[in-house]
């Protein structure tokens, strides 16, 4: 085995890649102002990434909430504290499940769509044609999609949480017989603004991570059918790992505070 080759492949290549993504992020942020100056493009992308993911987010939010209601009830009734189900469900959804599951779904639904769309634009010379018309594809194509994703995910997480709470209530209160008043009042008393903010910050960070990975992979996809397919796969894998890693780091940071 060539030791230099090993160092290059194992250490330097990933660092180079992280550096390239960092530079790409800076380039995107530099284009964010001009892109926001023409909000029509960004709004269109919020619709594409957000509104078009609503059904899957709502459906999964409902099921996650229902499971949370069921498992929470089973656990809490062992200690005779099933009235705290509302608090457990709310904290579980707001701080963890909402941002993480919604972000994973977002990576699979909107992230892949962004990567394949930009990758195909590259493969069919649309990005080159744009650059040849003296229009920067980063400003016109990539930055609006990135911003659209960053704006859409926190909104999707909010919807996910609301529907999830409804699902938990549906199972806990309607099915298992937890007192309605206790469910909502304990939640109201125990959930702090800082709990909500933790979820909001996570959803924004995940939104940046997912959207950045998706547009980076699409923009740098090899201009072939195989290249676009591989880039799409990389988007899902990288985003998923990144979401879970960032979730741990953020949770540790919040608990540390």
């Amino acid at each position, binding site marked *: 085995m060539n030791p230099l080759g090993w160092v290059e492949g194992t250490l330097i290549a990933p660092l180079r890649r992280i550096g390239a993504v960092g530079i790409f992020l800076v380039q995107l942020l530099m284009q964010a102002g001009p892109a926001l100056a023409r909000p029509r493009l960004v709004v269109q992308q919020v619709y594409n990434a957000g509104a078009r993911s609503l059904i899957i987010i709502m459906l999964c939010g409902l099921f996650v909430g229902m499971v949370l209601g069921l498992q929470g009830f089973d656990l809490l009734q062992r200690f005779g504290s099933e009235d705290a189900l509302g608090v457990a469900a709310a904290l579980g959804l707001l701080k963890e499940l909402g941002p993480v599951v919604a972000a994973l779904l977002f990576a699979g639904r909107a992230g892949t769509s962004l990567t394949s769309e930009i990758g195909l*634009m590259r493969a*069919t*010379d*649309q990005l*080159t*044609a*744009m*650059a*040849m*018309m*003296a*229009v*920067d594809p980063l400003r*016109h194509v990539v930055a609006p999609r990135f911003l659209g994703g960053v704006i859409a995910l926190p909104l999707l997480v909010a919807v996910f949480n609301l529907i999830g709470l409804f699902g938990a209530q549906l199972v806990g209160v309607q099915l298992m017989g937890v007192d309605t008043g206790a469910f909502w009042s304990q939640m109201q008393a125990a959930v702090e603004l800082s709990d909500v903010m933790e979820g909001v910050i996570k959803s924004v960070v995940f939104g940046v991570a997912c959207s950045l990975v998706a547009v980076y992979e699409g923009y740098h996809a090899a201009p072939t059918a195989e290249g676009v397919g591989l880039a799409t796969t990389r988007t899902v894998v990288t985003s998923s790992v990144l979401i879970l890693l960032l979730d741990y780091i953020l949770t540790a940071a919040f608990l540390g505070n």
Partner: protein
Amino acid sequence: MVRVTDLHYGVGERRIFSGLDIEVPKGSITAFMGPSGTGKTTLLRLITGQVEPVSGSIEVFGEAVVGMRKAGIFALRRRMGMLFQNGALLTDLSVFENVAFPLREHTDLPEPLVRQLVLTKLHAVGLRGAASLMPGELSGGMARRVALARAIVMDPELLIYDEPFVGLDPISMGVIVRLIRQMNEALGITSIVVSHDVDELSLIAHRSYLISEGRVVASGSPEELRNSPQEVVRQFIGGHPDGPVPFHYPAPDYFDELLGRGKP
């Protein structure tokens, strides 16, 4: 209008150009011809500043492209139009919006004027009636004509056509040939046409460059090229499968390989 001097370019170990010299006079139609894989499209990418050469100089509109910053290159590109092999229309925009795209990006013209300009250019390529169609609804020839309308909507001084005749039926090909000539004669646009369709080029090109193995092997008017005694030119013009440009990609001896003595 375009001057390429002693151009050297390569990708990795592979040398694509080694000492290329080309001049495109203002108001002319100049053809770059050559066998597939000689780097004709790469030459266009170099001229338009999409890639940097290893050495040599490229001047467009009298300005050096090599080493120019992005803003400068974009300023140059505003003065040129490019027709891609596949049209490269933006698939999420209608035909009308595709042609209007450069106007909306670079000007603040009022909507009625944008509409008038777009319809004029679409009329010039015979596709005013297709303004509301989406790119997916167009045939290959129609897509290329829409792309041509888009390329001329900003009234460029230089128009670059990358393989404009590939995969077209004879009628569409005739239409494109006529349009290229019209753009040149009516609007005075300098044109560069990259192609290996000798017959079509001979109808429109004032001057042709035959590129092979990284350099210009012959240049002149279509008539001069037809009468050239050079073997490589005769092979290319005559369409002979073998000659100075080999039919076979470099490979070990055929029989040795069949008998398992060569490399697999």
